């Protein structure tokens, strides 16, 4: 693979990479200093973010600069405004933001300051999933260091810019990664997503204008401000610019989190970045961007890994969390596991999702255990079409239904074989743990 410039992970390997001292030695906080002292206008910051073409790294790929520009005009709307950083990384297969938060927390803090300046936000709340204790502790320590250095709080760097950054811990609910579920949770409630409109920029946290951005999106901001939109656009492909963090897991020799430019094929990533499919086996299928993105068969591994190409192939780039399945993997078993997840995580507000995720799970489970019927395959399809697209308050129902349709489309023969044989020929008999009735945390 050709060499390419890297920036996202440029500091993570340094000794004490999480400290202010290391961050400063690498030119850290120079971008916010430039913004405040030159000074830039908030509109100029939003302008460079827009021009860079940065697309959000939290799954939807929405342009970050455009999202920032949705915040209302401060001269007409004096309500306090907020940034919420979505650090509730919970999409199965996704483990990238954790690397940034544990190893380079000051990069995220500087990004928050730039974003808050651009959107005239009074404060940023970093909503970290409760399980990420090290991320939380590292970020809290970094916030304390930055506050002591006059980088957070009142009159930052002696200017009239004031901004607070607060840590906030979630408690294990996947749905709080959905932006309106996140806001409900941050307000101290059950994480029930809100109907849209109103959109967060109009009425978000405490009914104030709010923007919710993914960790990696915010982390890109200081680099873009420092190096410019042209630099950013020189990387990647025209409609997906910059580098991204890839998480790759499952049946590969070198699972990991890697910084890559857009434009490589899935096959190149599997073979040249992740060391190939493990144990010398062949590729069967892969999730391109987390378990909510439709499974693609090995025959489609030449798809280019960028937002639009993966979409054209019938799936989604998502959070760039590739999950690799080798030839021995059982698709019915894989779908049983992923359907169980959505069943567990549905918040229960919408009946299509509350009931649908449970049905999908039960059907996949019985097929995977050799108790399915051929009619079940049509039932999976009709149920999924009743759940998605866009039939519910949020996209969790879609996240369960769309991969179901993809699995039945590409791997119908595997489900049919399980049903015909009355067992899953690929299931390996493993030890089973003894379970009490209430088995799930």
């Amino acid at each position, binding site marked *: 693979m050709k060499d390419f410039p890297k920036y996202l992970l440029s500091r993570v390997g340094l000794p004490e990479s999480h400290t202010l001292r290391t961050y400063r030695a690498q030119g850290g906080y120079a971008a916010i200093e430039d913004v405040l002292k030159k000074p830039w206008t908030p509109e100029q910051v939003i302008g460079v973010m827009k021009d860079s073409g940065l697309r959000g790294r939290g799954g939807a790929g929405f342009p970050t600069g455009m999202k920032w520009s949705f915040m209302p005009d401060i001269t007409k709307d004096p309500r306090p405004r907020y940034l919420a950083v979505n650090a509730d990384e919970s999409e199965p297969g996704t483990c990238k933001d954790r690397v940034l938060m544990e190893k380079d927390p000051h990069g995220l803090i500087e990004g928050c300051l730039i974003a808050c300046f651009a959107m005239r936000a009074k404060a940023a709340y970093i909503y970290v999933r*409760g399980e990420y204790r090290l991320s939380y502790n590292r970020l809290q320590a970094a916030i304390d260091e930055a506050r002591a250095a006059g980088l957070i709080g009142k009159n930052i760097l002696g200017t009239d810019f004031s901004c607070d950054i607060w840590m906030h811990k979630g408690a294990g*609910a996947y749905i709080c990664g959905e932006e309106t579920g996140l806001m409900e949770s941050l307000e*101290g409630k059950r994480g029930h997503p809100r109907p849209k409109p109103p959109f967060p920029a109009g009425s978000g946290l405490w009914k104030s204008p709010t923007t919710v951005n993914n960790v990696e999106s915010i982390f890109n901001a200081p680099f873009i401000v420092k190096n410019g939109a042209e630099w950013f656009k020189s990387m990647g492909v025209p409609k997906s610019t910059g580098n991204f963090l890839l998480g790759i*897991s499952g049946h590969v020799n070198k699972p990991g989190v890697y910084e890559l430019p857009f434009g490589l094929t899935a096959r190149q990533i599997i073979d040249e970045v992740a060391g190939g499919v493990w144990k010398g086996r062949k590729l069967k299928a892969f999730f391109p961007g987390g*378990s909510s993105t439709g499974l693609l068969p090995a025959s489609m591994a030449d798809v280019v890994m960028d937002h639009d190409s993966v979409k054209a192939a019938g799936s989604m780039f998502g959070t760039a*969390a590739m*999950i690799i399945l080798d030839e021995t993997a059982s698709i019915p078993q*894989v779908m049983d596991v992923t359907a169980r997840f959505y069943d567990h995580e549905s918040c229960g507000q919408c009946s299509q999702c509350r009931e649908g995720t449970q049905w999908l799970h039960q059907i996949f489970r019985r097929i995977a255990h050799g108790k399915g019927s051929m009619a079940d395959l049509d039932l999976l399809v009709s149920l999924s079409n009743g759940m998605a697209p866009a039939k519910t308050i949020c996209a969790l129902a879609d996240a369960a239904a769309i991969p179901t349709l993809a699995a039945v489309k590409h791997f119908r023969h595997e489900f049919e074989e399980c049903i015909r044989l009355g067992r899953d020929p690929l299931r390996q008999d493993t*030890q089973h743990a003894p379970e009490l009735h209430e088995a799930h945390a």
Partner: protein
Amino acid sequence: MALPQKLHDEFTELVTHYPERRAGLIPALHRCQEELGGWLSPQTIEDVAAFFGLEPVEVFGVATFYPMFRLTPRGKHLVSVCHNISCTLRGAEELLAHVCHVTGSPVGGTSPDGKFSVVRVECQGACANAPMFDLDGVYHEDLDRAKAEQILRSCK
């Protein structure tokens, strides 16, 4: 009963981070769980409700929504084994069976000596280092049976 003074003081500071007091609720429940025996007792729920000016049922409704909050007592050590897709592909079920064997706890229960509780959990964001478990708030990754056993046996 009321919250211990230390927690009361912490929460009094915590709520200053937000324009509305209630926003401190979930972080406060975490702290209570950490400090008060690893679970949220009915008494704790009442005390937290009183602090936030909420009805206990409202706090209970929040606590039951979030999988990290435990409403029943557990063993001294909590082992949370990820059973989501990336971990399953790399042997999570075998790992879980072994964890139960070593600790003497069934999944969703507690060992007879009260030392360990074992639960299944969904994706913990350690997918590139699967399989894994969280032991008392610390991730242990790239596990195999031997490594898991060594970690569990070193628990006091």
